[in-house]
């Protein structure tokens, strides 16, 4: 085989390999970007308590029993005095 033809084939091989590797890196980078967006950058704002705790509904007439609740409803006694449902 003539040397220039060999050289040409070698160059074609190198270019094709470069583009294949580049494509592979693009696909891998997109996967890493998705994983980083979903997990990496937002994990710090998650806590185990946020994931594990169940929904706690505090009804207006239960407010008196829960001193932590500041849900804007009147206290249990006031609710009953206004003719609210007396449970």
């Amino acid at each position, binding site marked *: *085989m003539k040397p220039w033809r060999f050289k040409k*084939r*070698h160059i*074609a*091989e190198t270019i*094709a*390999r470069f*583009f*294949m*590797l*580049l*494509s*592979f890196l*693009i*696909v*891998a980078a*997109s*996967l890493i*970007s*998705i994983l980083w*967006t*979903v997990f990496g950058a937002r994990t710090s704002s998650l806590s185990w308590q946020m994931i594990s705790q169940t929904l706690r509904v505090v009804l207006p007439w239960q407010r008196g029993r829960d001193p932590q609740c500041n849900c804007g409803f009147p206290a249990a006694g006031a609710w009953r005095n206004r003719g609210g449902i007396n449970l």
Partner: protein
Amino acid sequence: MLFALTLIPVILLVGVALGLLIKSLPLLREQNLWGLLSGTQWKPMKGQFGFLPFISATLWVTLLALVIAVPPSILTALYLAEYASKFLRALMRPVLDLLAAIPSVIYGVWGMLVIVPWVEKKMLPFADSFAGGIPLLQTDNPTGFGILAGAVVLAVMVAPFIIAVTNEVLIAVPDGIRQASLALGATRYYTIRKVLVPSTLPGIFASVVLGFSRALGETMAVLMVVGNVVQMPHSILDAAYPLPALIANNYGEMMSIPMYDSALMGAALILLGMVLILNVASTLILRRLMGRVRRAW
């Protein structure tokens, strides 16, 4: 019994198509089909239901997604099948499965957080300053929400399917064929170009069709980044409103408007028709390609 079970998918398909047709009949009776397909005005309150902006938006997003996805996907599959080490191959197989299994809403979130700002901060200034003369990049949309963002998200979504199927097809080629080509003095690239790709062309085409079908019907991820503006898109940076997004956004809303329900069912029927036409056309092309490969071998 088995024959009857085999017919179930056909019956389901016919049932879905018939159901959509019956639901969209009130609109089809009132307005002619060509008027609906070629109309550009979407004003439900005035009884104008032109589907062309939605059809063209669907085609723009899907075709651009394929233009972005197909070359790197096929090159990646070739790299994995022919050049990559065993370790990398073993690593990439579950990674590709993971990519294929990610729910589309996560792709949508990724698109909103990464791709839309990239289009807004990089592509729009580039289009303004350097590529102002290119019609495909001229837009008055000031946000990154548009066809390009939707197409990039969709391309990343369909790439794992195309890579996985193409990779499987390439691996299935008998090793003797490769060895014979290499023994004749051909380089690896020459073997890929002259032996592997021609012999696996039907499989590669099938993988592209699989990706195309997925892209055509994809709703959630596209809906989140495409802008959802009813207009005829003229550039890849314009906002658009594809058919699946129209149905998903509006079904169940504003149903008191006359014909609205029927129009949305008509949109679903058009989408189904587009997917069917694509699949029939691709099956015909696939048959032809397979015949050519058989004759060559």
